[in-house]
Each structure stands twice: as C-alpha cells, then as structure tokens.
C-alpha cells in the first residue's frame, strides 16, 4: 500500500518529471517517489550519503560496492 502523498503529493515540476518515467518503465519505482517527496526532509540528505558512500569509495570499486548493496538488499528481501 502506497501512501497517497507519494503518488500525488509532489510538487508540479516533480510530477512532470515522474510522469516521464511512468510510460518508460510502466510505473514509478517506490524509492524514486520516497526520495523526491519532501526532499529536504530525507531525499536530499540520503542522496548525499549515497554519493559519498557509493560513488566516492576509496577502498572498493564502484562495482564491488554495488555488489555489497545488492547482497544486503537480497538478504532484506528488497528488490531495490
């Protein structure tokens, strides 16, 4: 069950952008909705953490980091 705010609560420019994703993918992935809704509360800061942790990794390659993330997601029964 999705909260209605995640389907209809975004700002107009966000709805337009999300509207471009829907016909391409068939739906808008949940994480995209969560990250973009009230971005100043969560998405903005979480994106910054991901960028630092995954994209600027020093000891592991990007591929290795994404493998770790995929493994953890699998263990958490998460498809993302």
């Amino acid at each position, binding site marked *: *069950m999705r*909260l*209605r*705010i*995640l389907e209809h*609560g975004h700002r107009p420019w966000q709805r337009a952008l999300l509207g471009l994703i829907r016909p391409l993918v068939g739906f808008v992935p949940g994480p995209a909705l969560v990250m973009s*809704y*009230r971005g*100043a*509360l*969560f998405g*903005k*800061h*979480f994106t*910054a*953490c991901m960028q*630092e*942790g995954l994209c*600027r990794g*020093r000891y592991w390659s990007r591929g290795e980091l994404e493998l770790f993330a995929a493994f953890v997601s699998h263990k*958490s*029964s*998460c498809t993302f």
Partner: protein
Amino acid sequence: MTKRSNTFLERVDRLRDSVLRGPGRAAPELRQAVARRSARHGAAEGATSDGVPPELEAFVDTVARCAYRITDAHVAGLLAAGYSEDEVFEITLAAALGAGDVRLERGLAALGRDREP
C-alpha cells in the same frame, strides 16, 4: 579516521538531524522515540517502551526487524489510529533510520572504527 570517512559520517549526521529533529508533521520527540526503539531491536537489546505509543509499536518493530513484512494492513492501521499520511511517512523514515544506524555502527566496529573523529 580518514577525511573521507568523516565526510560520510557528517552527511549521516545531517540526515539524522533532518529526519529526527527537522520540521515535520510528527513531533520530533515521537520521531526520536521511534528511532530509539528501532535501534534497540537492531542491537538485540529488546524493545522498551521508549515513549513510542502502543499503536505504533508493532509497526516500528516490523520495520526494524523485517521491513519486507510491512503490509497494507499495517499502514491502514496507523491511518485508522489517527495519524496523517505525512506522519506515517516520517515515522517510517525514523524507524528505518534507527535500524540503519545500528547497522552502520556495527559495520564501523567491524572495521575497528567508531563514529567519533
């Protein structure tokens, strides 16, 4: 601790401050209590009252321990209890953050590091 690690932890701190103390529909005290209870589950300390209202306990515990088991009924129950959709959104974030925080601490501990610079 490398400068890069400090930058990551600083960003985590900003995320935590925003979700638990920033402007929101749910009271900051409630969001912090939810995060504490969720973190205690992850730390296997056992949940305590933590100031989390009874109608939220099952939801927070499920998010903390097995979020993939959250169902429509869980969310509908919170809405029926009088929480707004934005409050449910914020409470969910707080519970996920609490659970994630303890995992981060365990990972850092495994590396022989802690959160302090």
